[in-house]
């Protein structure tokens, strides 16, 4: 009788323990249904689960799917210019902007059941320091205030809204996997070794060569190497994430391959959402099949680049004339059909962002360089050119403008933009010869200053003016290039503007500094005016990402015009809508 009573008591205790201690796996049922997406991940045998190495998570999951496996502290909503909490519950500048802090949500755990703590964050950034992350250009240290609050200490004047974005967008990795490497990294940093030392290089190598056996996820999805196949990989729901209870898909099936490989899958309905760049004709065939198309900013567009050491492109009047002579709406249509729009403001900032970063007064005052062949002709004449008997522009000595326009043949969008611009300029009276090159060669030609006209991207998928202005004016000039790379042959640190010398490089570098958007706008206004007047490149159009979203497979997608679609590809709407359960398998 005593034994029975003891047994009953023991069973009661066990039952009580199971009742009190929450078992995450039991707490929520696994959702069902598949998300059918795509990403060109590394094939089995070369695929690895390292968050920091080539062929690791960054390459394999990309900007859309990695945030569903390794959460970021917050997610930026472009329309409202606000951050939505993901892994962190609060954040902000502290100590008179000397530091930044965020606090992790209570109850956040890794897929192995361990709590997510500030040690994980500190270890993430310690490894990032060894790898030379950009954040360490304005950080002096990262420290745990307590189990859930982490503090980022800034260098003098290091605080900026741009810094805030980079800190809140950085994925946090698990110390259970990377803690040992982080300890090694700390020892090297604390020893005073520099980044070019052997000790530093040894830790760097150890980090990139590390191959975790298990992916420890903070997001609601994870996978093992067994889930990676030649044709597709599968991210599987895991029960221990903060978002395991809200997501509606049990699996994310990601097809491998690029555009040409995924096209038939979209058409056959086996691929429901894709971020690939499809040609206009393919987009039309998707629409004909009744597949919904969602349009979001891509965060760049093709720009006509000048080599400033080649006459007459050193003449601002000729550049302005060329801007007037190219019909940018036509350029957009031929570049990417409905997936592009002709540039309107010519401000150096993508039109989708310009109203947020430049004052309306300045935008209104900017020269829009409307398509105007007569105006363009007047500018050419003012520059000293006249039309010859063939209708071609010629200088005082009768020399026509015979130039070569190099473009990357393997980039369909840039090729189309360059070929259309060539045709329009020839129509206007130039002698432009197209020269298609492999993209690496076209890029090298720009770096080496070995071109006359070329095409590359302008703008950036960033809510800050710096990144927009940076590309292409800093990207392809001595401001960022090596000493032996002349690039555009334009010294933007000493530009002649209205009779005075302006350091545009310095202006761009500082445009997004500090925490006051009004001050940043003033600075952006000034830069926009300089770029607009100087027409240092012609922003032909702004690309849009036209993404198939097959509603036969995916339900819940907000209607067109919803603010979430203001987010560009690198803050993709799918991340947010999957995590908060807005998107669900159709039919559920």
């Amino acid at each position: 009788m005593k034994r029975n009573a003891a047994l009953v008591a023991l069973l009661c205790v066990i039952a009580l323990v199971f009742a009190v201690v929450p078992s995450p796996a039991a707490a929520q049922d696994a959702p069902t249904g598949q998300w059918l997406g795509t990403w060109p991940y590394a094939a089995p045998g070369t695929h690895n689960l390292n968050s920091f190495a080539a062929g690791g998570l960054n390459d394999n999951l990309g900007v859309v799917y990695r945030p569903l496996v390794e959460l970021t502290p917050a997610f930026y909503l472009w329309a409202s210019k606000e951050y939505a909490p993901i892994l962190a519950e609060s954040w902000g500048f502290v100590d008179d902007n000397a530091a930044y802090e965020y606090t992790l949500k209570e109850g956040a755990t890794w897929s192995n059941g361990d709590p997510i703590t500030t040690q994980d964050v500190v270890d993430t950034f310690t490894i990032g320091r060894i790898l030379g992350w950009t954040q360490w250009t304005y950080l002096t240290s990262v420290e745990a205030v307590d189990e859930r609050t982490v503090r980022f200490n800034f260098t003098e004047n290091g605080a900026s809204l741009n810094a805030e974005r980079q800190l809140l967008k950085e994925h946090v990795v698990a110390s259970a996997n990377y803690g040992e490497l982080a300890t090694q990294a700390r020892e090297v940093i604390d020893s005073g070794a520099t980044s070019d030392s052997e000790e530093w290089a040894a830790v760097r190598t150890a980090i990139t060569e590390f191959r975790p056996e298990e992916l420890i996820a903070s997001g609601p999805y994870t996978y093992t190497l067994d889930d990676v196949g030649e044709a597709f990989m599968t991210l599987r729901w895991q029960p221990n994430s903060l978002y395991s209870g809200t997501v509606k898909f049990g699996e994310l099936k990601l097809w491998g391959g690029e555009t040409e490989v995924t096209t038939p899958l979209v058409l056959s309905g086996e691929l429901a959402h894709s971020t690939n760049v499809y040609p206009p004709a393919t987009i039309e065939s998707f629409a004909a099949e009744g597949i919904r198309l969602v349009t979001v900013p891509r965060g760049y567009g093709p720009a006509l680049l000048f080599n400033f050491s080649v006459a007459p492109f050193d003449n601002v009047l000729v550049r302005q004339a060329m801007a007037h002579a190219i019909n940018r709406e036509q350029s957009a249509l031929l570049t990417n059909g409905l997936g592009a729009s002709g540039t309107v403001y010519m401000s150096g900032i993508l039109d989708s962002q310009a109203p947020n970063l430049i004052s309306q007064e300045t935008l209104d005052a900017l020269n829009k360089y409307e398509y105007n062949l007569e105006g363009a002709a007047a500018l050419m004449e003012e520059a000293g050119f006249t039309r010859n008997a063939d209708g071609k522009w010629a200088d005082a000595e009768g020399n026509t403008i015979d130039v070569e326009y190099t473009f990357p043949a393997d980039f369909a969008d840039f090729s189309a933009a360059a070929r259309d611009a060539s045709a329009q300029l020839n129509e206007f009276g130039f002698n432009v010869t197209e020269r298609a090159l492999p993209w690496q060669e076209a890029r090298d030609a720009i770096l080496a200053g070995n071109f006359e006209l070329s095409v590359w991207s302008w703008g950036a998928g960033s809510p800050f003016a710096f990144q927009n202005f940076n590309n292409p004016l800093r990207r392809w000039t001595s401001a960022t290039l090596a000493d032996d790379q002349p690039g555009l042959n334009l010294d933007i640190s000493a530009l002649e503007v209205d009779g005075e010398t302006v350091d545009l490089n310095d202006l761009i570098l500082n445009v997004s500094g500090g925490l006051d958007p009004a001050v940043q706008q003033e600075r952006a206004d000034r830069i926009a005016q300089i770029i607009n007047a100087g027409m240092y490149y012609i922003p032909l159009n702004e690309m849009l990402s036209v993404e198939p979203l097959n509603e036969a497979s995916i339900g819940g997608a907000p209607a067109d015009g919803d603010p979430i679609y203001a987010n560009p590809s690198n803050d993709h709407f799918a991340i947010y809508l999957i995590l908060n359960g807005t998107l669900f398998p159709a039919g559920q």
Partner: protein
Amino acid sequence: MTAVAAPPKPVSAPAPTLISRIRRITRSYFFRVVLQGLLTIWAVTTFTFFLIREMPGSPMDIKISELMDRQNLTYDDAYRAAATLFNFDPDKPVLLQYTDFIGDLLRGDLGGSITRANVSVLSIILRYLPWTLFCVGLALLISFTLGILIGLAMGYWRGSWFDNFITGIASLLSGIPDYIMALLIVIIFGVQLGWFQVGAVRGGVDQTIEAGFTPEYIASILQYAFMPVLVYVLSSIGTWILAMKSSTISTLGEDYITVAKARGLSEGRILTGYVGRNAMLPLITRLAISVGFVVGGSVIIEEMFQYPGLGRNLYIAIAGRDYTTMQGIFLVITIAVVFSNILADLAIAWLDPRVRIDKGEK
């Protein structure tokens, strides 16, 4: 008594010296063919080594561009960051890279992939080569066999409706690039007609079936190979058909065929025993070259169907400028092409001794 002289001892041939043996070996047809093959492999390997490095953009350059675009780094900062990701020193003199490569190669080490850290080139080749050998090898076998038989029949009954019809089809098929063929089949039969699921023909095997020597696994391998094999056969069979037809027609003009007909031999006997065997000889060299290229796979077809072959890996390596992987795959292709040609030379020399004599072996 007349003394009888002792019979002279038979004069034995002088024992061959080492030098004469070596001379004999070096003068042999086999030796010269193999030596020529080895020299060809070395020359091609050296040529491709330098050619690869002359391609615009190194793996570092590609990563640097990406970092400059995405993180707005300066070139120097992006260079430093990229250097941490790759097992590659772009500043190392090319000649030094070459001597290192040859030294490692002589030790049987193809090195590690530049863009895929901790992955050896040999492991990539060993993992993917069997798939390619199976898929492209099977396709070549089918394509060659069918092509020879159809071409033979067309040549023998030249001018018939069968000849005219197949000539048109073969010309059409040989004019369509393999990637267009792959796309057409997938779009028309997969998407438009819905005869198969497009996703179900991607990869090398059903990922849900456990690997093993089981009927299901083998059936799955055959099922997944069907589409790439079909595309390869369709895109290459036209050439075999037309070549065999042409060779058959020229063989039919030979005197021994007329004699065979005059002797009253059956049509089947003439076709197989006289025409077919002789008409096939010129195609052996072509087959040998094709067999050599089997190991390189079919880049576009493998990429289209995500087939786990060496061709797809070559495509990935070229796109990412993974020099070492490219070198390794090109080396394997070179060895295969050279040795299959050697085998063809030896086979022809064995079949027709005049070839050896013509080439100097007495």
